[in-house]
Structure formats: C-alpha cells, structure tokens
C-alpha cells in the first residue's frame, strides 16, 4: 500500500474513532438543550464528573477486555474490585498513620492495586490448574471474595469520608488515564505478552503448538484485570466516600454495567487498538449517561434513564450482529451492477 493510501486509511480510522463520541456529544447536547434548557456540560462539575466516570468505566471495561477478548467471561471481576478496595484500602489506612493527605490517597490506590493483582492472580491460577470454565469459576470465586470483603472491617467495607481527596482532582484523573493508556497500550501492542495474547486470541491451539505458554499468559491477563478493576473501584469509592460490601453475587452488576462500553470499544478497536477503542467507547457511553442524567431536571426517573441506556445497548448489539449484512448487500449491489455493465458491453460488442 502506498504511503499516501496508508495516510488516508489512518486519517479515516482516526476520524471514525473521533466521530463516534463527537456524534454522541452533539446528539445529547441537542436533546438536553431542547428538553431541559441546559447544556450537556454546563460547568466544571459536569466535566469532572464525566472525567471520573470515564476513568472508572474505562479501567473496568479494559479489565474485562483482558479476559473476555480471549473467550474468558470473568464474572468475578466485580468481586475482585470489592476485595481489592476494601482489603487494600483498609490496610492502607491502617498503615499510613500520619502521612500527608496526598500520599495517603496514592498509597490507598497502590495497595488496592496490589491486592487486586493478588486477587486476579489467584483466579488465574485456579483457572489454569483446575481447568474450570471461566464463567463458572468466576461465579464461585465471586461468592468467596464477596464473603471475605464482608468480613473485613466489621462489615463496614471501605469508608473514605474525608480521605484521599487527591484522587478526586481532575488532574490526577487525567494523569491516571494517560498512565493506564500508555502502560496498557505497550503491554497489548508492543510487548511479547501482547504479541502472544493476540496469537492466542487468533487460535489458541495453534498458539500452544508453536510454543506460546498459554497458561502464563492467562494468569497475567487475570492479574492485569485485577489491577484495573481495583483502580476503577478506588476512584468510585473516593467519589461516593464509601464502598459497602455486597453478598449474593451482587458484585456482578459492575460487570454487566461495563459490558456496554467494552462492546463499543471493541467495535472501535478495529480502527485503532483495543485500549484507545475502549477509552473512546467509555467516553461515548458516559456522554450518553451524562445526557440522560440531565433529564432528571424535568422529572425523568433514574430507572427510565437506565432503560433507555440499555435500549441503546440492545440496538447497538443488534447492529453489530447484523453489520455484515449491510456490507454484503452493498457488495451484492455492486456485483449486480458490474454484471449488468459487462452484459451490456458484451451485447454492444457482439
């Protein structure tokens, strides 16, 4: 492919990736302005709220993608988040003592990431050793992790009221996104781990036959997922000031809520890469949610907003499942036109 054509393709991919959130922004801005009279992003608060939600959604969706892209539906991701935040956060608060506020917040984040890594590593280890179906294993582990989270800190979970305020700052959120994107892009796209992961994703048996260690790759994927969901959980907890433990697999709600941005991200990843795609997907979905939230001003209940959000997901899923048909119909039309033109030419010649 010539350089010019490559540049065109790259430009097209970039524009396509940017157009999706831009379209969502424009549509929601028009709807919000029309029905409520306010702007979609009306103040700095909306901007910071959007940033925070994008960061948490991006991290969680990326964490899900670590395994889901390779055919492993990890339903324990939510419980890993709870365990990492509650155990890691409380441990950090017990150990920090008289550290400054900023240092305390960062330490809470780092220790939660460490506990998340352990939690993910354990699930990965169990997966490769026991060879249980990932979904089934995820359900079982979710129950165990939820119980452990419940026991820690006298059932109070993690209370961060008045703590870790640095984690709410917009610049810290921005730095976190940049660091996560840089690290994960390197890991997924330029490292041996990433190469092997893509090979396994293509065909696991072939990858194993050529000597790739599919087991260690799986464990590393689970570790990365644990770290990412821990980051998501800490930012959510800092904003809401507390994270109560749950039981009965209620932690799965985080998994299902973040499947939408992940699905949009993987669709966009065809034009860029999974990390950028999922970021843009998270941004698009959170713009949708921010816009729907504005309708509270005119009395729309949060349940209706949730219904609309999941309706959009349904429509998107239906489109994705039938996307090939549009291309097929277009190609068929072109073939028929070519056949008619050829026949006309032959008739004219003959």
């Amino acid at each position, binding site marked *: 492919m010539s350089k010019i054509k490559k540049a065109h393709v790259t430009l097209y991919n970039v524009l396509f990736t940017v157009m999706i959130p831009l379209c969502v922004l424009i549509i929601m801005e028009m709807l919000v302005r029309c029905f409520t009279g306010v702007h979609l992003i009306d103040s700095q608060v909306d901007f910071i709220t959007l940033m925070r939600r994008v960061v948490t959604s991006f991290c969680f969706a990326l964490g899900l993608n670590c395994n889901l892209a390779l055919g492993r539906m990890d339903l324990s991701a939510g419980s890993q988040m709870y365990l990492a935040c509650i155990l890691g956060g409380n441990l950090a608060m017990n150990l920090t003592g008289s550290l400054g506020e900023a240092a305390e917040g960062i330490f809470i984040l780092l220790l939660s990431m460490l506990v998340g890594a352990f939690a993910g590593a354990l699930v990965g280890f169990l997966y490769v050793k026991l060879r249980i179906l990932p979904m089934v294993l995820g359900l079982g582990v979710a129950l165990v992790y939820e119980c452990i989270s419940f026991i820690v800190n006298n059932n109070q979970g993690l209370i961060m009221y008045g703590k870790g305020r640095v984690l709410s700052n917009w610049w810290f959120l921005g730095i976190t996104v940049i660091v996560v994107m840089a690290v994960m892009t390197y890991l997924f796209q330029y490292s041996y781990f990433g190469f092997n992961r893509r090979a396994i994703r293509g065909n696991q048996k072939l990858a194993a036959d050529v000597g790739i260690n599919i087991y260690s790759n799986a464990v590393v994927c689970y570790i990365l997922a644990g770290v990412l969901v821990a980051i998501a959980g800490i930012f959510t907890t800092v904003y809401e000031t507390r994270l109560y433990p749950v039981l009965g697999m209620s932690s799965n709600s985080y998994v299902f809520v973040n499947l939408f941005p992940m699905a949009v991200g993987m669709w966009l990843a065809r034009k860029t890469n999974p990390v950028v795609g999922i970021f843009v997907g998270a941004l698009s979905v959170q713009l949708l949610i921010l816009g729907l939230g504005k309708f509270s001003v005119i009395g729309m209940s*949060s349940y209706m907003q*949730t219904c609309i959000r999941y309706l959009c997901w349904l429509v998107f899923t239906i489109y994705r499942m039938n996307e090939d048909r549009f291309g097929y119909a277009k190609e068929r039309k072109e073939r028929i036109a070519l056949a008619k033109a050829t026949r006309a030419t032959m008739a004219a010649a003959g």
Partner: protein
Amino acid sequence: MKKSTKKLMALLLAILMLVALTACSEQKTETETPSSEQRAETAGSGSAKPEEANAVPEKSYTIGVAEAQAIEDVTIRHEYYEKYLGPLYNVKFIFSERLEDDNATKAFIENCIDMGADAIIDFKSCNSTMAKLCEENNLVYVINSVPRSTNYDLYEGVSSAFAGGVAGNMPVTGSYIADWLTENSSEDGSEGFLISSCMASTGVVEHIEITTRALEALQKKYGLTYTQEIGSIVMSPDPVIVENDKGINIYVYPGSPNRDTWLPGIVPLLTTGNYGFFISCAETYDTTANVVDEVERAKNIDIKVVSLGAMSSASLAFSNQDVHGNVSVDLVIATCSTAQSGTLFAVTYNALTNGVESQYIDGLPTYYTVNKLRLAGLGEAETLKGWDTMQTKNWIADQEFIDQLLIIKNPDLDPAGMKEFLASIDYDAIVEMISR
C-alpha cells in the same frame, strides 16, 4: 503440582493471610471519657446496693436479631448487645447477616428456633407473618417499627407473641428539620429546595414524616399553594417537580440511597446549581459530600445540607469546611444507637421475664419512640464524640439506663412509665448522663 508452584502458592497464601490479619485489626484510640463500667462503679451511694443492682439474673435467655442493613450502627449494636448487655443480663444473642427479604427473615427465625431462641428482635420484615411464626414456636416478637401500612394488624393484637415496637421519634425528627428549615431559609425562597424522600414511597414512616414536614414548613413559610396534594408528592415513586403558585424551586427525589442509581440521579440535580438546600431522609451527607463541594466551587454558591446521620461521623462532617468556609453539613439528626437498641432489648426482656402482656396498654401492644439528637454544629457533635462507637465502646445507654426500663429492677414500671422515661431522653439529658 510442581514443587516451585507449591512454594509460590504457599508464599502467596502466607502474604494474603498477613494482609488479611492486618486489615482486620482494630485501631484502639485512647479517650479521656470514662467507660460505662467506670461510671457505674463510681455511681453515688444513693443507688441500690452494688451487689443487688449489678447481680446477673440466673435465668438465661437467647434472643435472635434479624438485621436489615450492614451499616456501622449494626456493628455497634452487635458489640453492645453481645459484649455489654449479654453478660449483664445473662442473655445470648444470635445475629443474622443483612437480610434481603421476608423469605430470608423467615429462614433466620426458623434457624433461631432450632437453636433454642426465646425471642426475636426484627429490624427487617416487621410484619404479622413473622409474628405468627414466633407465636407457633413460643417466641416473643419485637420489631423496630412504629405502626404502618404493613403492620397495623400487629398493633391490633393479631398475634399473642408480639410485645411491641421501638423506633425513632418521627414527629420530633420531622419538627427538627421543619424548624431548622423555617429559620434558615431565605425570605423569598429563591435558593431552591431539593428533598431526597428516599423510601417514603415504599412506606418508611420516618422518610414520609420528614418529607411531609419539610414540605409543610415551606408551604407555611412562603404561603405556597401546591398543585398536588402533599401526600401524593411524598408517596410518589417518581421524581416530582413540586409546582406551586410562587414558582419556588422544590424537587422531591425518591429512591433508596443504597441503590446504585441514587447518586447518579441526585448529581445532575445538584449540578444545576438550582438548589441551595438539600434535605435528605437518610444518612447521605458523606455520599454527597464531594459532589456538593464541587458544585459549590463551580457555581460559587453555598448549599446547605440536612441529613440523618451517625454520631460517629457527625464531628468529622462538621469539621469539613466547604469553599466558602462554611461547614459542609448544616444539620445532622443522629440516632443514639444504644438508646434505641437498648430500648428494644428492654421491651424484649420485659416480655420474657414478665410476659408479653406486661408491655401492653389497654390490652393491646404499643410502640415506644426514642428521640433522635439534633446536631447543628461542631460543638454539639464534639460533645458526643467517643460515645457509642466501636473504637471506645463507651455506651450512652449503660446499665443504669437499661435498668430504668426493666420491670425486674422496677416492679411498678409499666409501658406508660417507660414512654415517659424515653420522652425525657434528649440531647441535654444525654449530655448530662455522659458528664456524670
């Protein structure tokens, strides 16, 4: 399994154990406030003979406690019941985890029956179905609820196992908020009022009372005529823009703060900057602290926050200042955990020792209300700091308090006397108690 893998697993599990043990450790904070036991020991000579007053009853009882939530108050109650009241009155307790629904409550009560329980204190279901189950198995049944639509029949004597109910004093709570609102809102109401009615639409009496009183206070202050009945506004399961003839911004937002959808629903309303007052029927000042702070900074307004709360976090809430230098929460209505839990225990214990009828008035079960505490500043919150907390284990409702509610200590005591005592327990009375 390979040796190296075994070693790695052993190391990982050892680290996990170390981490779990460290995370589970409690911080012991030293405080100068004397413990409840020390206060009992230093009580004046005017009290009854120490050996009689403090004698542990010979008969042992077992009480099952069906919990509805997993909040700090629950943890405090468990510690208070098991470690303080249990040894004093020779009572064992069986605690449930957070119960999701009536089926879970029923399963817990059945387990308690199998374990030989004598009574059930129900925080979750509070209905005649559970009372009937207790009645069939000769258990006493006490609830944490005043009469409401789901349990009126209990107070009409439908079950002989039902000894009564205990709850917060709703009218007084509502009046605290209504009076504060009347005093602190502006002359023209231009600042706007956002009321989170929480679970009023599902019949929670306290939330109904607070929302109703707040709306009535606004109606009275500004001479408003609402286009809808206050009752229908309060009981609405959907958000309501309360339309009125003066065009004052009033918004009632329902929904349990425990649900994931609550905060995302409140945030857009607060970020409009149209509401200078945020009144919540549940303990939400910490959940909304960050968004309120961000809105105040962005819009350069001062949002006054009123909320129910816990004594343990109230002083921290009043210590935090917003961008204008004002406290981040303006009024907290706090529950005295041990007063309410202790009263529930006392009603149950009286029913066990003297029969369920000892708790009846005019032949029917009754309910007891415990005043909540009005904390409007750091000073008031600081006075109660260190009391009714897990860290210090200083209990406001000590043995002296409980003994005043027990028939075995006061043979002439009747439910009316108990109500009179409870009505006298307010902030000033508690301050006096803890200062002794």
